[in-house]
Structures are given as C-alpha cells and as structure tokens.
C-alpha cells in the first residue's frame, strides 16, 4: 500500500477482517501511522498526535518516513527513496491529495492545512502573529479558520464565491452562516480572492492582497481552497488519469493495471474525486473485498455532510435543488433550514441546514423516498422519534450502514446499546452524526429508553447514586418503591447493589442485598461456561512468596482445578462447583490469602514491574507503591471494573497507560495517568498530573475514583466516562485538583470510610453460617455434586464439557 492515511488504514482493517492472509506492507511519507484527519483541529487544542493515530494492526509492516519514487509495473516493484524496493502482488495507491495552492506571487510563504506537520508549522508561525487569513471559505477553510482563531489570531476568511460553503449551502444558508461567524469576531470576505501574498522588507509575510487591491494585513496566510489528487506516481508509471487529474478506477477500484488499485482522494471514479471520509472508507471496503475475491462495487457515494464548524451546525443531504422547496428561516436565532421536494410534493430530494442540523439525522435516510410527514412539520421538529425508517434507508453514510442492518443487529445479535451497535455494524464510528438515530432505533426496538437505567428506573446511575446518598436510602426495595416501578431486573439490581456497596460499605451478601447481585458477586467467584466458577486470590502488586505459591498449587491439585496465570499478575483457579467454593476459600484464607474481587465491578489488580529494588533502570519502588494502592482500594465497588498498574521507570513495563489509573515513576516522583483501557476500544491513559509525591498521588487517585463512582453511568469504564465529561480532562482537574465544586473534602472522607470499613468478603462469608448455607448445588441434597458438570483432559488439566 502506498500512502498511509485513513483510507489506507481502513483498507488494512478491512483486509484483515476478511481473513486476508498475505503479507501487508504500508509505505507512508509522514513520520507516523495514519491518523484521524477529521479531528485534526483538536491537535492544536492539545490532543496528542498519538491519540489521533489509528493503531497499526498486528502483523502489518509499516515503512514510515518513506517516499515512494516510482512503480515498476512489469517487475511489480515499488522504488522507495533511500531504501530497499518493495515487491508486490497487489498494489494499492492511497496517496491522498494535496491542498490546492493557487499560483500567485508569494504563495510559497503560505501555509496549508492537511497534516500534523502543517499544524506544527502554523502553530509556530502563530506565536509571533496577531492576524491570520484563510483563503477558502469551504469546509476545510472554516476548519482552518477555527484553528487560527483557537491560536489567538484575529482571523479573516477569503472566499471566491458570493457566500461561504457554496458546495453545502445555498445563498440564504450562506448568509446565516456568515452572520454566525462574524458574531464570533471573524472577518468574512466573500466574492473576493487572492492576488498575491505580500511580504515585508524583512521577507516575512505581511498580508494578502485581494484582486480588488485591498490589503488584508496578516502574518499567517493559510491556503485551504480545495484539494488536488496526488497522482504523480500513477502518471509516471503510465496509469490512466482523469481529465483533471486523479487515478482512474473502475467500480472495483482497479486502475488501468489490474494489479494496481487506487482508493481515497487520489482516485477518480466517473470523473469524481471524493474528499469526504465516508466515500473513501467505502472505497477501501470495496478494494478489500475485491482483493480477497469478492464482488463489491463502488458506484459513487452520498456526499451528505453534517458538521459543526466554529460552533455552527451545518448539514447538507441529497440534492441541492428541486422542483419545489420549503424554507424555514429565523435570522434572530440564526437558523436556516430548507427542504427540496419533487414536483408532486411527494418525494424528498434533499435539504440544507444551518444553525440547527437536527433534520439531517432524521431526514437524510428519506432522500429519494416519500416524505414521512408534511414538510413544515419536518422543518420545525426534524421529524422526531416517531418516524419509522425503511430498512433500506442509510443510517450511517460514513460506513454505509442501513437501518435494516442496524435493526437486525439489535434483534439478531442482541446489541443493546449504541456501543454494541458500533462494534457490530461500525455505524457511528466515524463522524458520529448518526448516533442519535442509532439511539432512536434502539428505543423503537424497545431496547434502550433515554438515560433511564431500564424499565424500572427513569433515572441514570449517577442520579440514582445521588438519590441514595442524599436521602440515605439503605435498600433496593425502598429505592424502587419510592423512585422506580416493578421489581427490578438484571440491569438495575446489580447497579443499585454497587451503589449501596459504594456508599454503605456493607457485605454484598448482607440481607436483601444478596438478591441484587449478579451470580459472580453472589458466589464471590467468576461463573464459567459450564456453570462452574473460578477463584482468584488477591496477590497485591503481583508479589508472592514461594510458600504462598505452593499453597495455591496444593489447593488447585487437591480440588482438581485448572490453573492459568492472568493478565493482572494473579493466578486463576477454574472448575470449582458452588459447594467447593467455601472449602477452597478456607484453605486460601488460612494461608493468608483474601478475595481478589475478580468477580466484582471493583478494583481488580494493581500490576507492577519489579522496580528500583532489582531493576537497573528503575527509579522508584513500583512494587511497594502497587501493593499500597491495591490494599487501599481493594473491595471498592464501582460502575465497572477498575484496573491499575505502576511502572518503575519510563520504559513502562507494567503497561500503566492501558489502565483506568496508571502510575509511572519519574526521577522526581510519580506521573499519574487516567482513563486508559485495553479491551475492544483501546485507549491510552491521559497524563493527569506530573511529578507527584506519594501523598499527593494517593489523594488525587482517591478523588478521581470517588468522583468516577459518583458520576459514571452503569458499566461505563473510566475511559468512556472521561470522554463523556463536558470539558474533559480540564474539567476533571478543576473538580478534583482545584475543588471547583467544593466536594473534595467529601470525596476524601468517602474514601477514608471505604478504607476503614474494608473486610475480606471470603472470610466474612466463611464466618457466617447463614451465608454459607447458600453454597450447595441442591437445596434438597446438600452433599450431592451437580451431575451435569463433566470434565475431560487437555494438556494435563481439566477442560469443561457442556452437554448440548
């Protein structure tokens, strides 16, 4: 693959998903793997390049900082500047585009806005500037203008057309858009252009002269006026090009050489170059399908867009003209909405929205279909949730997912929330504008209703937490009687159980609480596919004595359990029947072990590297800190499981940045990272505070955890919670460092209560005959083991056999 942008990344993913088993090499000229260009502007507001980058899938070879200089199609080799040539069976050109720079005097002094490198250059130039001007009032131009404004420059926008965003909105919409942007303090020059980039006597940029002769003073000039396909490799190697450039492809994304494909912004199909991410992803999927022997085709794409630029929502879908149109305009609120319909007023042809894009989500799928309601209703309300989308209506245009596919994911594959649908169908994973529609489809299917936990509570978890805390509610029965309906379910009961445990610190099997617990918490062990359980004793920080290791070995041997080392530096013992659990705990507890809470939505493990005690690179005692943290937070019930790690130096052997809270030692103290995750959607934790003393570190983690426990949704890991916080990391700092809400003393006291009240759940159960009496396979035959549990042997250990 030549070129490593989002389309190339998508192609690699799509190939691997389809089981492609050949070697994949991606050659890119930038110094980093593909990154999310749609979110590029966030880089200037502090998001790290690594966070924008897509992870390189395992097994894929990347050659970064590498420029391809030629293609030998006969020998099937690409020449790489300063490196070995790369052979291929199939070559994919994904070279993207370059910003169009008009050939005017001084153009060489202007910036462009496409890569992270471009943004670094703009940021540097902005340091000594007061004014900036962007040439181009389209989508990319406004994006660049937003970036200049964010860098603190007085910003001008110069656009040749009579109004802004001429490809997305008409004149009326353009006027409303202009008013919005001018209200933010930007200067808009429409119907203008660029005559030259003016430099002063010192050779520095002094401004931009328009064709009318006006000088707009500025020290930073950015050209963002369209793109041109990067087709030079194709041109030199004799592949067919479009009239205005671009590599010509057929509906299979093949170029004029059947061994060479082209996708993304460098490709031209039926005379069109596509500069939006959605069509480029579709091209990648089609090419992947063809390369792996499929028959997919690309026959053009929907160019609908919905975006928020400079705080203004703009959307366009379907056609931009029609026999009839209906317009709603509110110049005071700055809202402009227009629908185009067929001459019989029966079919929706397209629409334009400025200032309020809500009709986009509901109406785009109806393009080319009968109007679902009178046009005026649609313009005022956006149609609302009452519309029933036809199955063939496209819900996600970025990933080409129809309503029918979403519906079958809900009913057939059991997707119960937006996250599940994203995983299953990819809908909503790119620009996210269809997420409200996904939520609607879930609601229609009776799966998800608003923010309420389930049919029994209209409150979110965070609201229920506050209700229980403020009203001092002690039981589920009281809570549901006073604030809910029915008798609960497998969704709300464990969530309320967790809230009660977080607030009241009692044993999870005490009284009525026992009936709320999921089976894992109910039996203080992890259920496995055949109905047996696994047992994980706590091994704080992963440090264990030989004697204790021997005890675990003896217990596993005596009860015939399967043993496996976990990812959290612990040992998992599998295959225990419920009636064996207390006997196993007795042996472990007598040897000084306690529950590891592997079964709970609670702190699991604090992993560590060996640290400065042994390691020649270590700068702090990571094991000692990991043990202290694990003992402090053990048993803490939370909205979801909590994982942590401590690394003794910047080499990060404990993988702390993949954890909910991770600590990395520095020469001066500890760096704290929060919101990391492995799992389905890996996320590197964000640096929250640097060079903390141990005391500062512990206090910060205390508050982080307690604030998370109070405000997160059910089953929302810290990574998703952090992303859902309005104001993100900055807001979190203001709450738990600067005490903006005045709750820090309360959070601290809450954690102190937790630490003081901690007791081992296994030991407490062993000491309580009432709780112990539940640990039988059969209530009427307590000594009889469950005959349905059968094992066979594999690699000298047991393996479950489930009778079908």
């Amino acid at each position: 693959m030549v070129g490593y942008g989002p389309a190339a990344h998508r192609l690699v993913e799509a190939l691997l998903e389809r089981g492609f088993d050949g070697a994949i090499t991606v050659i890119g000229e930038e110094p980093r793997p593909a990154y999310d260009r749609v979110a590029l502007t966030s880089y200037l507001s502090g998001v790290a390049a690594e966070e924008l980058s897509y992870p390189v899938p395992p097994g894929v070879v990347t050659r970064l900082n590498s420029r391809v200089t030629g293609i030998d199609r006969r020998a099937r080799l690409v020449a790489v500047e300063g490196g070995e040539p790369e052979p291929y069976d199939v070559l994919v050109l994904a070279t993207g585009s370059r910003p169009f720079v008009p050939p005017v005097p001084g153009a060489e002094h202007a910036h462009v806005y496409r890569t992270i490198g471009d943004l670094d250059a703009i940021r540097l130039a902005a340091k000594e500037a007061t004014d900036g001007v962007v040439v181009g009032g389209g989508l990319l131009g406004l994006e660049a203008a937003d970036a200049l404004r964010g860098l603190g420059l007085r910003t001008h926008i110069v656009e040749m057309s009579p109004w802004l965003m001429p490809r997305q909105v008409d004149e009326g919409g353009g006027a409303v858009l202009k008013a919005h942007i001018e209200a933010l303090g930007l200067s808009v020059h429409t119907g203008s252009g660029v005559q030259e980039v003016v430099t002063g006597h010192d050779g520095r940029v002094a401004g931009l002269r328009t064709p009318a002769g006006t000088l707009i003073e500025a020290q930073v000039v950015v050209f963002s006026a369209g793109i041109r396909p990067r087709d030079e490799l194709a041109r030199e190697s004799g592949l067919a090009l479009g009239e205005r450039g671009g590599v010509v492809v057929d509906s299979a994304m093949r170029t004029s050489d059947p061994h060479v494909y082209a996708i993304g912004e460098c490709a031209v199909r039926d005379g069109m170059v596509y500069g939006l991410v959605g069509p480029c992803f579709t091209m990648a999927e089609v090419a992947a399908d063809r390369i792996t022997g499929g028959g997919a085709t690309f026959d053009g794409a929907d160019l609908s867009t919905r975006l928020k630029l400079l705080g203004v929502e703009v959307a366009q879908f379907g056609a931009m003209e029609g026999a009839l149109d209906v317009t709603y305009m509110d110049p005071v609120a700055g809202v402009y909405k227009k629908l185009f319909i067929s001459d019989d007023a029966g079919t929706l042809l397209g629409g334009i929205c400025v200032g309020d894009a809500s009709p986009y989500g509901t109406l785009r799928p109806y393009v080319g279909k009968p109007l679902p309601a009178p046009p005026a209703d649609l313009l005022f309300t956006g149609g609302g949730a009452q519309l029933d989308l036809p199955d063939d209506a496209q819900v996600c245009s970025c990933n080409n997912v129809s309503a029918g596919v979403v519906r079958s994911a809900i009913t057939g594959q059991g997707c119960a929330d937006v996250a599940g649908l994203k995983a299953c169908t990819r809908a909503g994973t790119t620009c996210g504008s269809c997420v409200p529609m996904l939520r609607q489809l879930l609601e229609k299917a009776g799966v998800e209703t608003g923010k309420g936990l389930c049919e029994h509570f209209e409150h979110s978890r965070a609201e229920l937490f506050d209700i229980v805390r403020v009203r001092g509610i002690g039981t589920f029965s009281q809570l549901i009687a006073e604030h809910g309906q029915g008798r609960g379910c497998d969704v709300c009961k464990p969530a309320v159980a967790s809230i009660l445990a977080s607030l009241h610190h009692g044993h999870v099997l005490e009284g009525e609480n026992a009936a709320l617990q999921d089976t894992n918490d109910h039996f203080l062990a992890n259920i496995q596919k055949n109905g047996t359980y696994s047992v994980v004793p706590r091994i704080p920080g992963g440090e264990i004595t030989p004697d204790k290791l021997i005890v675990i070995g003896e217990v596993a041997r005596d009860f015939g359990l399967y043993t496996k080392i976990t990812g959290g530096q612990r040992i998992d013992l599998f295959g225990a029947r419920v009636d064996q659990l207390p006997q196993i705990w007795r042996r472990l507890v007598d040897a000084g072990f306690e529950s590891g809470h592997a079964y709970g939505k609670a702190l699991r493990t604090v992993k560590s590297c060996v640290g400065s005690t042994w390691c020649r690179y270590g700068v702090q005692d990571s094991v000692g800190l990991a043990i202290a943290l694990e003992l402090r937070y053990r048993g803490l019930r939370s909205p979801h499981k909590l994982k942590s790690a401590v690394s003794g130096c910047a080499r990060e052997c404990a993988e702390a940045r993949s954890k909910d809270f991770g600590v990395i030692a520095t020469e001066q103290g500890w760096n704290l990272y929060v919101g990391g995750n492995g799992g389905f959607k890996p996320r590197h934790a964000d640096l929250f505070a640097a060079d903390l003393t141990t005391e500062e570190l512990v206090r910060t983690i205390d508050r982080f955890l307690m604030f998370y426990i109070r405000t997160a949704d059910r089953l929302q890991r810290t990574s998703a919670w952090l992303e859902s916080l309005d104001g993100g990391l900055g807001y979190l700092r203001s709450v738990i460092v600067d005490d903006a809400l005045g709750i820090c003393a309360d959070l601290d006291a809450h954690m102190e209560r937790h630490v003081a009240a901690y007791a081992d759940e296994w030991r407490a159960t062993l000491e309580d005959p009432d709780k112990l009496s539940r640990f039988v396979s059969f209530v009427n035959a307590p000594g009889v083991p469950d005959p349905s549990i059968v094992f066979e042997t594999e690699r000298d250990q047991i393996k479950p056999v489930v009778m079908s």
Partner: protein
Amino acid sequence: MTWVNVCGYATLLPERGVCALVDGEQVALFRTHDGVVHALGNRDPFSGAYVLSRGIVGTRKGEPTVASPLHKQVFSLVTGHCLDEPSVAVPVYRTRVDGGTVSVSVSV
C-alpha cells in the same frame, strides 16, 4: 401427580433462586417478592449449562422473570418462555406450599 418435598418455605429467600434435584431433574425454584413460588427447569437452553437458579429475579412489564446468569436472556417464571427469543422455552413445574414446606411436581 406426585409431589416431592424439597425444602422449607423459609429456606427460599425473596428473589433468590435455589436448585433442587427432583426425580433426577434439576429444578430451579424462585420465591418472588409477592411470596409466590415458581419452578423452572434449571438448564439454560442457550448455553446448555444448569444455571438458571442462579439468575437475577425481577419483572418485565409486571411479569416475574429470571435472567440467565451466563448471557442474560430473560425467561418468564410463569410460562417458561424466553422473552428475548420467544421460540425458546424452558419447562415450568408445578409448586405448592403446604405447612411451610415447598413441594414440586415434575410429572406432567
């Protein structure tokens, strides 16, 4: 119809299941909040594991239910039908409470 005594009514805690072995059949017994005792086959038809007695008891639109502890499919305690996939059902057994003793009949 043969009734088999399985346990005292007080052994059944509200909204917590137990399993009984009755004529070789595994029977999941549940006492709902209103005091009624329900009995279903203990085998979860989706996984093949004998675990339904360990599910969370609750209601769906007023109907008493239990959710499989493995993959959370919800079954009606009254009809045995899976409310998430109506073509799947588990056996429902008769129960009675007499003099503080719960008995079950697995004969049809």
